[in-house]
C-alpha cells in the first residue's frame, strides 16, 4: 500500500512538472517578430459574461489593426489570460505576462484585480492599462498603472448634478451595493447632490449577495424622495427596480454606466421606462458604433454585454499600436519604461469607437458623460455632460 502510494505521488508530481516545463519551453520558443501586449480579463467565474465579450472586442480591434498593415509592417500580438476577476489569479497572470511573455504593457480590468497587480507592475516597470475599472483609487496606484476609462467620480458627478439642477429634484434617496464600487460612488453622489442644493433623505446599503431588498426599499419609501439613485450591479439593479415598483415606489430612478445595458430593458420590460443611466462612450448615434453593434448582431447573434466597456476594449489595442509605432519609429528599445514615457508623450489618442482620449499625467482621463434614458423600450440619449 505504501509503495503504491509513493509511486503514484511521484508520477503525479512528474506529470505536473513536465506539463509546466513543456509550456514554458513552448512560450520561450516564440520569436520576437511581433509587437506583443497582454490582456488579463475574467474568462471564467461570475464575471466571465462581461470578460468574454470584452476579450472578443479586443480581438476584433487587434484583427482590424493587423488587417490594415499592423504596426510598421509588423503584426500586433495579444496574449490573453484569465483573472477570474480574482486578485490572486490576476497577480499570477500579470507575472506570467511580464516574465514569460515579456510584454512591456498589458491591459486589465476589475478594480480589485487592477489594485492587486499594481505593485507587480511598479516593481517590474511594466505598464498596466486599466480599461473598465472605475474605482477612484486607481489614479493613486503608482507610476505604472494608468487608466483609459474615466473613473467613478466623473459619471456619478454628472448624474447627481443633472438630477439636482436640470431635473430640479430636491430630495434624493441613494441605494447602493455594499462593495467598493458602490460605497465610493454613493459617497460621491451624496456629496455632489448636497452641494448642488439637494438633500439626501435616505442612504441605504445592501449586501452584494442579497436577493431581497424589501427592508432597504421600505426605508426609502418612508423617506419619500423625489428621485432614487441606485448604485448596483447590472445583475441586481433590474431586480431592485422590479421590487421597488412592486412596493409602490413610482419615483424616477437614476443609475450609472453598468446599468446602461440591453439586459435591463429585457428583464424589466415596461418597468424600465424612464430609468436614467450613464454611458462613458458614444452611443448608436455614432456611425462606427452602430456598425460595431451590427457586427455583434450578425456574428454573435446578440448585442454585447456592457456595450460601452466593449467599445473601450476594442479601442485599447489602438493605444498599444500607437505607442509601439512611435517607439519603433524612434528605434527605441521596447521596454515598459520607454512605453510609459512614450504613452505620456503622445498623450492624446484618436480612437475608433470611443473618440478622443487624453491620458493625464495624474493617471486620470477626460471624457464627456452621455446620459441615457429608457424611452419606448429603447435606450435614448438624454444629454451630454462635458
Amino acid at each position, binding site marked *: *500500500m505504501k509503495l503504491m502510494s509513493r509511486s503514484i505521488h511521484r508520477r503525479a508530481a512528474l506529470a505536473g512538472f513536465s506539463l509546466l516545463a513543456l509550456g514554458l519551453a513552448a512560450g520561450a520558443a516564440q520569436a520576437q517578430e511581433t509587437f506583443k501586449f497582454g490582456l488579463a480579463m475574467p474568462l471564467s467565474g461570475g464575471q466571465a459574461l462581461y470578460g468574454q465579450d470584452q476579450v472578443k472586442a479586443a480581438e476584433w480591434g487587434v484583427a482590424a489593426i493587423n488587417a490594415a498593415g499592423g504596426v510598421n509592417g509588423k503584426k500586433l500580438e495579444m496574449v490573453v489570460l484569465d483573472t477570474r476577476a480574482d*486578485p490572486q489569479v490576476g497577480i499570477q497572470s500579470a507575472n506570467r505576462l511580464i516574465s514569460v511573455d515579456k510584454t512591456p504593457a498589458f491591459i486589465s480590468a476589475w478594480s*480589485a484585480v487592477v489594485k492587486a497587480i499594481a505593485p507587480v507592475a511598479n516593481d517590474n516597470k511594466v505598464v498596466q492599462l486599466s480599461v473598465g475599472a472605475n*474605482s477612484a483609487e486607481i489614479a493613486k496606484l503608482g507610476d505604472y498603472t494608468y487608466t483609459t476609462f474615466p473613473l467613478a467620480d466623473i459619471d456619478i458627478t454628472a448624474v447627481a448634478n443633472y438630477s439636482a439642477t436640470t431635473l430640479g429634484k430636491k430630495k434624493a434617496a441613494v441605494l447602493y451595493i455594499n462593495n467598493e464600487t458602490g460605497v465610493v460612488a454613493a459617497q460621491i453622489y451624496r456629496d455632489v447632490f448636497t452641494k448642488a442644493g439637494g438633500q439626501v433623505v435616505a442612504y441605504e446599503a445592501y449586501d452584494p449577495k442579497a436577493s431581497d431588498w424589501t427592508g432597504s426599499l421600505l426605508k426609502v419609501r418612508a423617506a419619500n424622495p423625489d428621485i432614487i439613485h441606485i448604485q448596483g450591479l447590472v445583475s441586481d439593479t433590474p431586480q431592485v427596480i422590479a421590487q421597488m415598483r412592486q412596493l409602490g415606489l413610482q419615483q424616477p430612478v437614476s443609475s450609472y454606466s453598468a446599468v446602461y445595458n440591453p439586459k435591463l430593458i429585457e428583464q424589466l420590460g415596461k418597468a424600465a421606462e424612464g430609468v436614467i443611466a450613464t454611458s462613458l462612450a458614444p452611443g448608436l448615434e455614432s456611425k462606427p458604433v452602430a456598425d460595431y453593434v451590427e457586427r455583434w448582431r450578425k456574428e454573435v447573434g446578440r448585442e454585447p454585454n456592457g456595450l460601452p466597456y466593449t467599445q473601450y476594449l476594442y479601442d485599447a489595442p489602438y493605444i498599444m499600436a500607437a505607442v509601439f509605432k512611435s517607439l519603433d519609429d524612434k528605434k527605441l528599445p521596447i521596454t515598459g519604461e520607454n512605453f510609459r514615457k512614450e504613452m505620456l508623450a503622445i498623450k492624446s489618442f484618436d480612437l475608433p469607437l470611443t473618440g478622443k482620449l487624453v491620458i493625464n499625467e495624474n493617471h486620470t482621463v477626460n471624457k464627456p458623460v452621455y446620459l441615457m434614458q429608457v424611452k419606448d423600450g429603447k435606450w435614448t440619449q438624454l444629454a451630454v455632460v462635458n
Partner: protein
Amino acid sequence: MEYLYTIIILVGLYVVLASSFNLVIGYAGLISIAHPVFYAIGAYGSALLARDFGWPAPLAMLAGALLAVAASILLALPSLRVSGDYLLIASIGFQLGLLEIIKNVSWTGGAGGLTNIPAAFAPSTPHWVYAVIVVVVAALSVLAVRAVAHGAYGRAMSALRDDELAFSMLGRNAVAMKVGSFALGCGLAGFAGALYAHQFRYLAPDQFEILQSSAILTMVVVGGLRTTWGPVVGAVMLQALPQAITFMNLPPSLLGPLQGLLFTGLVLVFMFIRPQGLIPAADVWTGAKEAHDVGRR
C-alpha cells in the same frame, strides 16, 4: 524568473494551508471549513501592524500568526464544549461575520481591499529569497503536522476522532486536545496569510470567502485526507494545473470554461474513481498494528 517564483510562493503557501487544514479536518476530525478566515486574520493582522504601526515585517508576521491562534482558541472553546457539529456552524458564522466586518470598517480598507502593505524586504533583495523562505516554511509545516499526527499525540488524536467517549473514559482531556490541534492548524494558516500579505501587498476580503474554503478542501481531499503528502500533492496540482493550461495557447472562449471546469471536474473524477485521494491514508487497522508493535518493543 519572477513568474516561477510567484508560482513557487503560491504553491508553498497553499501547501501550508492544505497541510494545516489536513491537521484540523483530517487528523483531528474537527469539521470546520473556516480555514481561510484564519489565513485572513494572519494576513490582515500582519499587514496592519506593519503598515499603520510601523512594526518590522518579521515581527508583524509572527504577531499575525499569533492573532490567528488566539482567534481560533476563542472560536473553538465555546463551540467545542458542546459538540462537533457546532464547530462547523460556528466556524462558518465566524468566517462570514468577520469578513463582513472587514468589508464594513474603514481601517481594513473595506470592501475595496487593503493597499500599500509594506514589502517584507527592500526592493533590492533578489526575488528568489522570498521563494526560498516560503518553501522552507512549507517544508517545516508539513514536517510539524507529520510530527504531531504520527507521534503519541497523533495516536491520541485518532483515538479522540474515532471514539470520543472511549477517549474521555481513558482520562484524557478531549477539549484541550481539540483546541490544541485546532489552534496549531489555524496558526499555521495565519502565518501563511502573513507571508502572502507582505509579498503581494494587496488584500481583498473576497479572497477569503467560502470559495477559498472549497479550494483548500479540494486540495486536501484530492490529494488524500489524513496523509502527510496528500495535501502537498493536492496543493501543487491544483495550483500548477491552471497555470499549465494557459500555456496550451487555447482561444479565450475555450480557456475560460476549461479553467472553470478544472476544480469541479477533478472533484467529480476523484469522487468516482479515487475517493481516497491520490495518496490513500493507511487504514485504521495498520495504525492499530503499528501502535501494537510499538507497545511490544
